[in-house]
Each structure stands twice: as structure tokens, then as C-alpha cells.
């Protein structure tokens, strides 16, 4: 064959130690998002995920991985590192939410203000960002996405397989329910 086709599956499985996770480890379905904090489509997906989480409750485990496309989004890398810096202080999801709720305000001084608001150790936060302590982790996420067939943001995986369909609430919910039922 002159063309090669392949199934897009998660190249790095979800692990409780490494990943940022909401929901129980034994949930019926795991939804992984590769996202960019400055990407408007990811911003549009943010409330959808919240609704899907509310409706599925403990049956859903949600995982977020970084996929900053810095070529298009000048602040995406620093925002991703800010979320990882917050994670190192145990506040990943709080920062993740603040970033998506303030997508147009991701300059360094904005990130610092969010760190203060979340009562982080701001000195440590500043140091982490200045020295790019979490850049390696962000890049690791990015490459795991590339190798899993991420071709834009957001890209979702349901129980390890890429979800190529719409991510409108009902479509996403239906796909998640199908995956839950086939377990």
C-alpha cells in the first residue's frame, strides 16, 4: 500500500501519579483532553467539559494534558507552565480553571495575579516560571499528544481512542455513554 493508515490511540496511558485527574480511578470512562490555554476552541470546550462532568458524576474520569501551539498562541506555553507550577503546589485544577476563564489575559503579570489569588507561594511560582522548571513536563505532554495523533486543539480521547466527532455537549455525552456501556 502506498498509503498507511493507523488508528489514533493514546501513546502514553493515563497514570494516577503523573496525570492531572478529576474523578475516580475506577470510573467507567476516561476522557483525556489535549489543550492549549490560549486556544479559543479549547475555551469553548471548557464549559462543555464542566457540564459533562456534572452530568456523569463519578462515572467519568477527566484528564488534562498540555498541547500549547506557541506558533499561533504567544502566551500558551507560559500559561501551561503556570498551571504546572500551580500543580507543584497542589492547585492544578484551580489554576486550569482560572486560565480558561481568563483566556485573553495570560500575560506574565496576569499569571502572577492568579497565583496570588489562589494563595500560592508566589515567590516559588515566579521562580518556576522564570527558570522554566516545568517546560520539560509541558513538552513531554506535547510530544505524547503528537505521537497519539493530536492534530489540533482540543483533541479528546475516550478510553484511549481519539474522539473525532463533535464535542458539543450531547455528542460528547453520547460518545462517553457508549464507551461506558461497552466496558
Amino acid at each position, binding site marked *: 500500500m502506498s498509503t498507511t493508515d493507523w488508528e489514533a490511540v493514546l501513546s502514553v496511558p493515563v497514570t494516577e501519579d503523573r496525570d492531572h485527574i478529576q474523578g475516580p480511578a475506577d470510573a467507567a470512562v476516561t476522557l483525556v483532553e489535549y489543550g492549549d490555554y490560549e486556544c479559543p476552541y479549547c475555551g469553548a470546550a471548557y464549559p462543555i467539559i464542566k457540564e459533562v462532568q456534572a452530568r456523569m458524576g463519578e462515572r467519568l474520569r477527566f484528564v488534562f494534558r498540555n498541547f500549547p501551539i506557541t*506558533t499561533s498562541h504567544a502566551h500558551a506555553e507560559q500559561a501551561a507552565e503556570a498551571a504546572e507550577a500551580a500543580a507543584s503546589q497542589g492547585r492544578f485544577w484551580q489554576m486550569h480553571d482560572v486560565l480558561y476563564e481568563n483566556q485573553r489575559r495570560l500575560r506574565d503579570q496576569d499569571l502572577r495575579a492568579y497565583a496570588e489569588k489562589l494563595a500560592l507561594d508566589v515567590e516559588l511560582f515566579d521562580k518556576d516560571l522564570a527558570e522554566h522548571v516545568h517546560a520539560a513536563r509541558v513538552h513531554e505532554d506535547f510530544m505524547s499528544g503528537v505521537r497519539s495523533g493530536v492534530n*489540533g486543539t482540543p483533541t479528546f480521547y475516550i478510553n484511549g481512542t481519539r474522539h473525532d466527532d463533535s464535542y458539543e455537549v450531547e455528542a460528547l455525552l453520547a460518545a462517553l455513554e457508549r464507551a461506558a456501556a461497552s466496558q
Partner: protein
Amino acid sequence: MNQVETVDHLATPLPAGAKAPDFELPSTPGQTVSLAELRGQPVILAFYPADWSPVCSDQMALYQEVLPEFQKFNAELLGISVDGIWCHLAFARDRNLRFDLLADFEPKGEMARAYRVYRANDGTSERALYVIDAEGIVRWSYVSPVDVNPGADGILRALENLGKEGAS
């Protein structure tokens, strides 16, 4: 009526093992890039339908982002469309693309035709990928549906396989 039959039939690209047709196309006003001058290193050809269209932009932005990974294989990435050189220049500047975009502009689509990925009905190329080895032989080719960004995974796999088979 036969109109329901207008399914989008994708082109069949040159297969692995074929000799890659040589080309020499402008990359900037006053500069050209030829396949011959890239002999000795792997070459990635990313044919895309048009500058500025949403999917193309995402795809090229992604390739810019993954460029350091391609460079680990010493591979040269070239984007190709039928757009003219000034259009490419404005597009690359706007999207922060720092790899060459070749203008398959005159005679229009000649390179895309040689690589069997020209869409005569649209007057553009397919969204097609080629990985060519250091000796100028096609080692992998792929045509994606026009509105689907094929990502970078297939290219990286092909580059890895060059390493594995390259000794022969």
C-alpha cells in the same frame, strides 16, 4: 441523476520505493529549492490546498511546533501549495512559520501533478504527505481527506523507520 455519487475520491500518491520526481520551485522572491540540492538528508513534503484556510493553518502551525523533532532526524520540511510566493511570504509571516513554503504556481500545480496529488477540479493539491530518504526515494506517502489535518505522527513514524531500514 448521478450527483449522489460525488464522493471525494482521494488521489493515489506515488508509492514507497518510487523515485521522487525532482523539482525546483521558488521559496522566496529570488530563491529556489530543489530536491537535488537536498540529497543526503531526508525530506518531508507537506502538500496543502491553500494558504490561509483554517485547516492548513493549524497543520502548518503544528509542523512549526514539531520542527525540532523533525530536525533530530536531520530532515528538511517543505510546505507546498499552488499559492504564489508573495502570498506564501505573507502567510508565513502572519503565522510565524520558519520553514520553506514552495510556490507550485507556474506552471500551476506541476509539482503536485508529478507527485500525483493534484486536484484538477479544485485547482489545488491534495492534503498529502511524503517522506523522501537521503537518496531521493519515496519511503512513505499519505493523502488525507482535504478537511482533515493529518497531524505529525505519521511523519515521525516514517522518519524513525528510515533509521531502521536505512542500512540497506
